């Protein structure tokens, strides 16, 4: 089998197993209270990390580019209580405009 198909096979198998593990093995059951407490913090911690890596992430580096214009515009839109859809569109448009200038 070629390198490509081996990669497709193994990455696919691992990812499918990761995603399925919780719902298939534990589905519908309540988690222990202490674990729920921990997972309550998972969403904000993970979301903040995703904001950072998506906004300033490069190839093993911090890259400050026009994405920050979009994120800044998004922050203003969030402050003005714009719906999420509008926030996303504003971020893309602001970054696109900044790049076009």
């Amino acid at each position, binding site marked *: 089998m070629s390198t490509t198909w081996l990669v497709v096979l193994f990455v696919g198998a691992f990812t499918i197993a990761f995603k399925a593990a*919780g719902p298939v093995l534990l589905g519908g059951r309540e988690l222990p209270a202490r674990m729920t407490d921990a997972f309550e913090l998972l969403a904000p911690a993970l979301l903040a990390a*995703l904001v950072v890596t998506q906004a300033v992430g490069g190839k093993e580096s911090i890259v400050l580019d026009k994405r920050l214009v*979009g994120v800044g515009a998004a922050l203003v839109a969030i402050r003005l209580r714009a719906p999420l859809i509008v926030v996303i569109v504003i971020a893309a448009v602001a970054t696109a405009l900044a790049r076009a200038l």
Partner: protein
Amino acid sequence: MSPLVPASATFGAAYGVLAVTAGMGVFAPIVMSATTFAGTAQFAAASVIRDGGSVLAAVGAAVFLNARYLAMSVAIAPAFQGSRLRRFFESQLLVDESWAVSQVGGGRIDRRVLVGAGLFLFPCWVGGTALGVFGGDVLGDPKRLGLDAAFPALFLGLLITLAVSRRAIAAAVAGGLVALVLLPIAPAGVPVIAAAAVCLVGLRRR
């Protein structure tokens, strides 16, 4: 989710173009989008293949990037009902974006929102990949269209609605800082997993 359709499709197309130029052929990238269904890991695997890396290097990078799904998968488990087969298929719709929009606070998710968002994004991602593989950059450069700013904006918007309690704000600040510090020094994927580990602090009694 609708604004993420152009973003998801154009990044799918960008992945298709990269995968073809990396020498992955035309079908493998589409199969990978349909089975792995996780953008960053697929980009990473394609880059390693393009640079002539080994199977182990490509799989290792992608698996590391996707390890966060294991934590997310366990966290969302209580919301999944029904037969094992149904839970299996629904769980495959877990991606960062569908997970993020389904958060209802207190560490819980709305399964219907996650599944709905996933069903929305899946054809965009796979269809976008096919477009990129066969048609090249027909959808345009995602960066020129500013679409690379759409994802941090989505995550930021969701983060702010979730970060209401002092614990949640502390976790967000800690997670963001961990990611920022590790970004220039750790391999891709590590900053996000390390930030997720911040939630282990919550295992201590309040």
